[in-house]
């Protein structure tokens, strides 16, 4: 029997959005600022994502990189890797795209309030984390310490360099950066992101770790967190899977019995650990 009536609208129909600004952030990465054509806010939480359409090319999931505290528009940061990403990179100001969402659960910002937070970003893991960082900065008094550990492969691949500089200068942000491989000009730390951990002193009783990076990174960061005494429930990560629908129908994003687009993409390590295929 049908447990619900036919819905009035299609969950597959995107809203239109106008591209307000494109900015290059690294060799293969660009930042795109959009405004929904119907004039309303996207209304997202940090850590959520949208399905962005380029009609005729396709649709793909992209994390929202701006903080919901910055109103009027939203930003997506995208690395060019395939059909839709490359086509998006060819767009310029004034172009129109389709947007569905926001989807997914997002970071548990309410649980983070009043706590110290260590953010661990590997490569483009900074894209979704930037939303959380700016959210915390805009509501700075509601959170404890903010420690950011950011790792890039090379100095050329550092993302959001200007913002990193700004965060560096702030008294209320502890930012540590590293690159896997340095060059002549790089005077900073060299080594994978976990090698920064010795320089960080935390109070394991009141800290949350929020980790986003390439799949290989998670195991190592979790081991570091354990060494520092951070319990599984307070290690938070965002996982990536192939996605088509973003709304729990197409089945592509499954990890065991979990639909990442629904129950995720943000999980605690306590949850992830129970999934055999997760990391």
């Amino acid at each position, binding site marked *: 029997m049908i447990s619900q009536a036919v819905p009035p609208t299609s969950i597959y129909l995107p809203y239109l959005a106008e591209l307000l600004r494109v900015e290059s952030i690294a060799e293969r990465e660009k930042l795109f600022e959009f405004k929904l054509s119907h004039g309303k806010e996207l209304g997202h939480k940090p850590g959520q994502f949208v399905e962005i359409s380029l009609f*005729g090319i396709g649709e793909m999931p992209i994390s929202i990189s701006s903080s919901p505290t910055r109103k009027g528009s939203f930003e997506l940061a995208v690395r060019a890797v395939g059909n839709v990403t490359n086509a998006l990179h060819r767009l310029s100001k004034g172009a129109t795209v389709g947007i569905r969402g926001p989807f997914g659960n997002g970071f548990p910002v309410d649980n983070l309030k009043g706590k110290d937070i260590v953010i661990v970003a590997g490569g483009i893991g900074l894209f979704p984390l930037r939303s959380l960082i700016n959210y915390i900065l805009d509501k700075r008094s509601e959170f404890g310490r903010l420690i950011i550990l950011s790792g890039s492969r090379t100095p050329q691949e550092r993302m959001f360099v200007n913002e990193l500089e700004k965060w560096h200068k702030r008294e209320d942000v502890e930012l540590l950066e590293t690159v896997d491989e340095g060059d002549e000009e790089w005077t900073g730390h060299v080594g994978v992101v976990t090698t920064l951990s010795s320089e960080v002193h935390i109070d394991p009783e009141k800290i949350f770790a929020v980790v986003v990076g390439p799949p290989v990174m998670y195991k190592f960061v979790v081991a570091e967190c354990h060494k520092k005494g951070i319990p599984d429930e307070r290690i938070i990560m965002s996982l990536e899977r192939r996605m088509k629908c973003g709304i729990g129908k197409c089945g592509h994003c499954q990890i065991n019995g979990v639909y990442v687009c629904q129950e995720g993409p943000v999980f605690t390590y306590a949850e992830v650990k129970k999934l055999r295929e997760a990391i």
Partner: protein
Amino acid sequence: MKAKLGFFDFTGCEGCQLEVLNFETELVELLNHVDIVNFREAKTEREDNYEIAFVEGSITRESEIPRLKKIRQQAKIVVALGACACLGGVNCLKNFRPMEENLRIVYGDAARYYDTIPARPISSIVPVDYYVPGCPIDKKEFLKVTKALLLGKRPEIPNYPVCVECKLAGNVCTFDKGETCLGPVTRAGCNAICISNGRHCWGCRGPVDDPNTNSEKEILQKHGLTVEDILNQFRIFNGYLEVSK
């Protein structure tokens, strides 16, 4: 600006190009977006400023190699068209006979005037960007690939076996009718046309990326084929893959 396409043929039956000419109405619509600059079958004058080269036929003579290399130099995108260009195709059957014998069979006494080398796909000579497999190619797929290229998109050629499309077409499996089939290791995209028309799949679109050939051989054997039969089945289209191992 319109994109410029060129069509080139090497050793093959030119069936694939004819296939393109076979749907003139669509071709006319497409001509709003492209100029066809070098198409042996359709036009006589030739220009050399094409951006997308569709190459048909396999390479079977020394003299074809520099010509193919020149095409690669000029074109931004090279698309292999049809089983011959993609896989070596039916032409590879001759690889299993001594070369001299081939020449004698084909040219009789005139054989000594021709140079011939083992048939090979164009990708063995130059890098190939995309493939439109099949013998002959499927019109719809050719249009799909061309449209994708015009939109700046990587064409989606399925990487799953013919069985998917065969089942979707509602066919009764040929194995259930006491026959055999190469569908389980062959790349889909043809809508299982041969099976829908009462025949079986002979693998003209080449294998999927990671075919389970051992399992397929076991199944064929279980259904009464000998190793010899099986090799012959595979060789019809995929001979080059076997010799190049």
